[in-house]
């Protein structure tokens, strides 16, 4: 089945998802890192709920800490 043969409703959903992914790609890296941490929390919850060992979740606060802002860049 090619794109044109898909039902209109399905195409709309896929187009929405595609547009959302493109929006996400344009976010600043700091924001994407926050999203990754949220993904890690979900992944960890899913692992625990299914009796698997917990997966790591980054400490976002520490991850974004800057010790000496003047020393770099």
């Amino acid at each position, binding site marked *: 089945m090619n794109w044109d043969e898909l039902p209109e409703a399905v195409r709309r959903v896929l187009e929405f998802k595609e547009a959302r992914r493109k929006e996400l790609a344009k976010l600043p890296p*700091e924001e994407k890192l926050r999203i990754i941490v949220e993904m890690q929390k979900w992944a960890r919850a899913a692992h625990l709920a299914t009796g698997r060992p917990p997966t790591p979740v980054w400490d976002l606060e520490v991850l974004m800490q800057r010790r000496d802002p003047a020393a770099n860049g």
Partner: protein
Amino acid sequence: MNEAVRVFRELQAEGVIRQFALGGAAALVFYTEPVLTYDLDFFVIVDAPPGQVFSMQPLYEHLKRKGCTIAGEQVMIGGAPVQVLIAYNPLVEEAVREACELPFNGEHVPVMTPEYLIAIALQTSRYKDRERVHLLLEQAAIDEAKLSDILTRHGLIEAWETIRRKQ
């Protein structure tokens, strides 16, 4: 991330490593939609005689002295597990050397460029690597001439053509 970069810059200043750059899935935050990952892959170039097996131990010792915790093959630096990877072949070494300093959280991070991330993913070619190639091609600004040059010089044209046919 900032703390990890600070630690690597110190190692560089002390001559422990020659150069370093962020690669792997974490590098994608600079070019594509976010992708789930659990560690920050930092690739390093060290001075080692050609052909000699490099031991990570001295590097880990330096990191421990800086207050980092070593857990297996990962180093906990500033809130995230960091995977320190020696630039293991000429392509990866070149990717580290050609990395761009990109702004992050008020500072700068040396990040592998999307062309090198594609080339490395083609070389490793696991399922997730091939997915990354598609993601980068779809969402990152790629310098096609530069990519073509890298792929040609590192013998990756066939792998590239295979993946393009499947797109």
